[in-house]
């Protein structure tokens, strides 16, 4: 049985080998954020909170793909990616996603925004896993300057990298999935696949009132600032935030009633008008089949190949 291998490195290499990559990654993250900020809203105040999901009609193959095929294919493929266990196959999945991204001509700023959103959670794995993964036989542990308690388990690092690659691979597919058709069309596709129709309606309604309530919240918070409120770490701030929340709920719940009355006055009987219906053509199915076979090949390769 092979013993865990230990590599001892002098202490001065700790900053070079560990802190430097971390610093580079953090700098990269900040750079991405700057880039997104510059691209998303030139001149005016940026709108981080509620980005629009679909921008105008595109002409890429993904825009023309039948929405039902697109949903099923990308969802099933995403679960295939989840089941991958090796770093090389996870990296191959990232390559596939990048290819799809290029074909769908997704907006770079939006894709980067999604990557930024997962960077904190995935970054935690990179920091914690090498330090905490239990040492098994066959592992390689790097120890700097005899600091035994600070052993970097390379297997943990590899595991974190696999997780990170899988997360990135799936995240990169979200823009091609969501922004290549207007949200109502995507949701209608979902309900034609058998999901209860009410789900699509509720998502649309929430999405619409999200914008309304966010503007309400912004108005309320500028009112608080004008009256001299500044956020601090104290009880007073928490009390003010709680009153703010309570007021938001009171106003929105009252609005809820009016919204529903208005919907009924316009003849709402539990259904929304349907967006245009598309028919599935052979080439839609071919594209789905090609993609899913590629995914299955990736999973098979992950299981069989070393």
């Amino acid at each position, binding site marked *: 049985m092979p013993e865990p291998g230990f590599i001892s490195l002098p202490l001065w290499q700790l900053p070079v080998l560990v802190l430097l990559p971390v610093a580079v990654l953090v700098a990269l993250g900040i750079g991405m954020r700057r880039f997104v900020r510059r691209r998303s809203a030139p001149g005016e105040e940026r709108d981080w909170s509620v980005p629009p999901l679909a921008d105008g009609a595109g002409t890429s193959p993904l825009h023309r793909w039948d929405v039902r095929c697109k949903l099923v294919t990308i969802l099933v493929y995403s679960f295939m990616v989840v089941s991958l266990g090796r770093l090389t196959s996870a990296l191959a999945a990232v390559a596939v996603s990048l290819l799809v991204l290029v074909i769908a001509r997704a907006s770079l700023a939006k894709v980067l925004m999604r990557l930024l959103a997962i960077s904190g*959670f995935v970054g935690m794995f990179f920091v914690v896993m090498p330090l905490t993964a239990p040492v098994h036989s066959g592992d390689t542990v790097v120890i700097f300057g005899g600091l035994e308690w600070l052993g970097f388990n390379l297997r943990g690092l590899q595991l974190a990298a696999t997780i990170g690659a899988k*997360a*990135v691979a799936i*995240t990169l597919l979200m823009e091609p999935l969501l922004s290549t058709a207007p949200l109502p069309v995507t949701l209608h596709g979902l309900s034609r696949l058998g999901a209860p129709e009410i789900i699509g309606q509720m998502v649309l309604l929430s999405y619409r009132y999200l914008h309304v309530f966010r503007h309400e919240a912004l108005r309320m918070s500028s009112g608080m600032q004008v009256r001299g409120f500044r956020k601090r770490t104290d009880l007073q701030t928490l009390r003010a935030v709680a009153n703010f*929340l309570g007021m*938001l709920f009171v106003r929105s719940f009252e609005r809820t009633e009016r919204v529903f009355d208005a919907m009924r006055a316009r003849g709402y009987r539990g259904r929304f008008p349907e967006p245009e219906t598309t028919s599935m053509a052979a080439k839609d199915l071919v594209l789905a089949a090609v993609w899913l076979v590629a995914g299955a090949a990736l999973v098979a390769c992950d299981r069989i190949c070393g």
Partner: protein
Amino acid sequence: MHISDGVLPLSVTIGGYAASAALAAWSAHRTHHEEMPKLAVMTAAFFVASLIHVPFGPTSVHLIIPGLTGALLGSSAFLSISLGLLLQSLLFQFGGLTALGANALMMGLPALLCGWIFQKFKGRTIVHQAVTGGVAGALGTALAAVILAVLLAAGGEDFFGVAKIALVAHVPVFIIEALVSAFTIGFLARVKPELLQPPYLRPQKAAHA
């Protein structure tokens, strides 16, 4: 904290989807079908509430408020939370689409429990209601953190370290959530007490009465 794609093993993601779909169906069954559009609009309000950041020392934490959601929406809370998480995933990538089921369990189960606890023990006075709301708020976040740790730990012993860190990172959030929930419930008890009556949305049975 939302679980992103690629972290949970395949079995946990699919199991999470199955369990949360069943719970969401139960939650929808308990909600009168006429109230569904209203629930959707309220979900938007809770969504906006969860975007609010509270400063905490040098950093800031955003509110999760599973306890408040449960207290206000009762058994409809699970449906509302699943919907909110789906939107967060679609819009911001907070929580992966493949981990949606697991995330819904993590936030929705505490909301159901806290809603029940709040309605059971809220008492009559404003102070009593506020204290119960605070307890429900703390408990909801604590339970969400425990479920998160369990889900992460399901990945095997390599994940135990991450699970522990995730649990510890939530401790300051308990306190903030408890205080904010208590103050919010206190505010609502003074301003619009009917929102705290069980349940604000009519359950299915009451419609026939």
